[in-house]
């Protein structure tokens, strides 16, 4: 049978997670409780964190720190995080957003996990606490690559630099249901302009590989260019580099490959569609 442990501190929780192979952290419950309800998770320990640090937000300055237990609703309630509102609003309906956490989104299997796509385009660092020690930061991309292997301890938060100019951060989720549904794909792009030219572009995709991925071909195509028709065309041509989309109930691999360059082109062109 399943047990539930409520932990008053992060170190207590990470200690349990490290010591018990059958322990799973439950944040908002939107991933783990589904497995419980459908009988895939019947043994072990569900670990809850009630430490207020887990839900702490530090969003005022140039370096933003969000606890892993921060919910999508909390992001939407923060004016300082307005540039992340499109990504947060793309997660479920209001009830899901009251529950779903940033930390949980990092573990959501494709085609879910759209908020993580936004974090990837922000070059976010993940803070992981293994055992009772203090946390250490690792690049999100590295974390995602290692995610399937599991056993990394407790994700306590994410950190990233605030975009200098919020209008240089773009997010788009493409679904077949209006106003929203599960992702056909999602795209996040941070395109800082320096002297009218893109510098240090970061573009990330959701649902185009087993985890959210960086679109390095697109980043290269845009680097040092003005966002004109030629650059956008070059980016579209490089759009599918590194993509390994799946065929699932939402879309086929073929369809995802077909429409990704189209949506990328619209995002880069500032087309509202």
């Amino acid at each position, binding site marked *: *049978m*399943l047990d539930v442990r409520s932990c008053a501190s992060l170190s207590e929780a990470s200690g349990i997670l490290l010591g018990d192979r059958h322990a799973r952290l439950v944040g908002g419950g939107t991933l783990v409780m589904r497995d*419980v*309800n*459908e*009988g895939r998770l*019947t*043994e072990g320990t569900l670990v809850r964190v009630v430490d207020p640090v887990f839900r702490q937000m530090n969003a005022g300055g140039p370096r933003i720190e969000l606890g892993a237990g921060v919910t999508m609703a909390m992001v939407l309630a923060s004016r300082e995080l307005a540039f992340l509102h499109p990504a947060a609003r793309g997660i479920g309906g209001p009830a899901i957003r009251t529950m779903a956490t940033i930390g949980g989104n990092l573990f959501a299997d494709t085609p879910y996990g759209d908020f993580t796509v936004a974090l990837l385009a922000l070059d976010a660092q993940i803070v992981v606490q293994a055992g009772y020690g203090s946390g250490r930061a690792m690049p999100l991309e590295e974390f995602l690559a290692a995610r399937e292997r599991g056993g990394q301890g407790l994700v306590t938060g994410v950190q990233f630099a605030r975009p200098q100019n919020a209008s240089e951060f773009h997010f788009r989720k493409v679904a077949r249901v209006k106003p929203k549904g599960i992702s056909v794909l999602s795209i996040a792009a941070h395109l800082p302009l320096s002297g009218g030219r893109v510098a240090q572009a970061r573009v990330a995709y959701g649902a185009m590989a087993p985890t959210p991925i960086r679109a390095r071909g697109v980043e290269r195509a845009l680097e040092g260019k003005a966002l004109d028709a030629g650059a956008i065309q070059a980016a579209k041509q490089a759009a599918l580099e590194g993509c390994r989309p799946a065929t699932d109930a939402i879309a086929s691999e073929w369809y995802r490959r077909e429409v990704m360059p189209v949506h990328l082109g619209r995002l880069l062109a500032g087309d509202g569609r």
Partner: protein
Amino acid sequence: MLEMRKDIFADERDDNLNVIGKGLQRQDMPGHVTGRTRYFDDHAFDGMLHLKVVRSPHAHARIRSIDIAAAQRAPGVKRVLRGADVPVNKNTLLSLINFGKDDEPSLAVDKVSYKGEPVVAIIADSEAAALAARQLVRIDYDLLPNVFDVEEALKPGAPVVNETYPGNYFEYHQRYDHQKLRFGDVEKAFAQADMVLEHRYQMSPIEHAPTETNGSIAAPEQNGRFVVHSCAQGLFFALGTAAKIVDVESNRLHFIGGTVGGGFGGKVDALTEPLAVLGAMLTGKPVRFVLDREEEMLYGSPRGAERIYVKDGLMRDGRIVARSIRSYFDAGAYTRLSSYAAIKCTAHLPGPYWIPNVASDVYVAYTNRCPSTAMRGFGVTAVDFALEVQMDRLAEAANLDPMEFRVLNAYRDGDMKAHRRVAKNTALIECVQVVAEKANWPLSEQAKRQSSLTGGVGERALIPATPLDQRGQIGRPDTRNAPSSQVLPAGTARIPLSKQPVMEGDRDGRAKPTQVPRYESAQPIAALPPYQPAQTSNPPAPAYQPPPAYQPSPPPPAPPPAAPAQTQHGAVRFSSVFGTRRR
């Protein structure tokens, strides 16, 4: 938004309808908005047990062994059921109306025929305990070759999906591997047509996805009876099915339902009631069996996929002179309601159009897919899609406006339908006229003047000479492509079958009288216009100038005699399965 068009068919209807078009509050609405409406699952029982089934992970496999020992010992488990525990472990839904052979077990015994087929049922004192014990059941399988395509399934040598029907087709009248319709001579008409167009239409299975998943709760009552709260759309269907499978008289079951959280056809299969009742009988406790969402989506039966070939003979002036249909219903692994769907499909052909030569062969094929079932017009919806897409293609080929094209070919009262019944209460022309008006679609003055009430006369009211073939006779594979063997002379009508139910196949060892439709000799039936010796079996139709030449209408038919009682409205219609009913 509702509009009552009293100008159309005014003489066919009592004009005392006083509800349509008015906003009347529904009596169940207060319950819905206050959360007090009780669905099947909204009932509390002390000591209720929960039933979960172990499903096959394979589409087609022989069961080598089932080991339930560990599951039986698991905490909270009260009882584990296998096929041998089910009193009558083979059923077909329509056996309640003596239609089809029992072909589907409640719990699979020696083989599984689709992914998700239930094999073992676990009854425990909580859902969590039942789910945990489910993982302890060990079933060894030997994989069998499978077939997922309807036409592949019908080929010789295809894997046998359902041993009750070893040819992978439902057997009609114990004689044919399909539903057959013959009216006139399509081959001859194709040869004489200006154009022949054939297209293939492939549908997908569709899950009903009701917000409330399938489920039921069965609980012991007093006097050896059981109360069953059920999601069933057909409550007495579920009752009869449960009574048969658990082998009790139906008066020992007290079914309560009718409040359904979305059905759309997906709650007629009695997916949970029999095992819930059996569980309650064996444990003496209330037993709840509810599908979870994943089960509902994957293993709740869907609308069956259909593959439809439509071949039409078309004249340049827009008349359709022949229509031939070959259609395959994907029943999945078991019959459920697909046998009925093919009958509905055949009864619907060739669509709401008068066509002088019609032939159709509609097959129900078994594949290693989840069994399919009823869904909103099943049997008709898909073929209608195919036919209407085909109609647009024909209109384009004839260079005619698609709306005018439909008016030209529409049924009119008095037309002889391909089923040798006279068309009555036809209304396609009026529907097209109203739709065109609403959509600001330009319709010619002549098309606007057409009426369903007139024009169904002359050649249109006759039964043409009809070649018959022996195609698809069961036990005679050589007849699959048999040529015509006999010609029914023009005017030959079918003799109505006797009032006794048609017994098809055997059920529980009962007698199985065989009744094959017979045809009366070549005599005109009384209700038809005088029989005219045909110059050819396919007389040339009067020249057509699009839109159709409007003939001076004969005096309108006398209004039908007043209904005997003031309370009766509308026309009496005939249903092929349920007999005469009033609608």
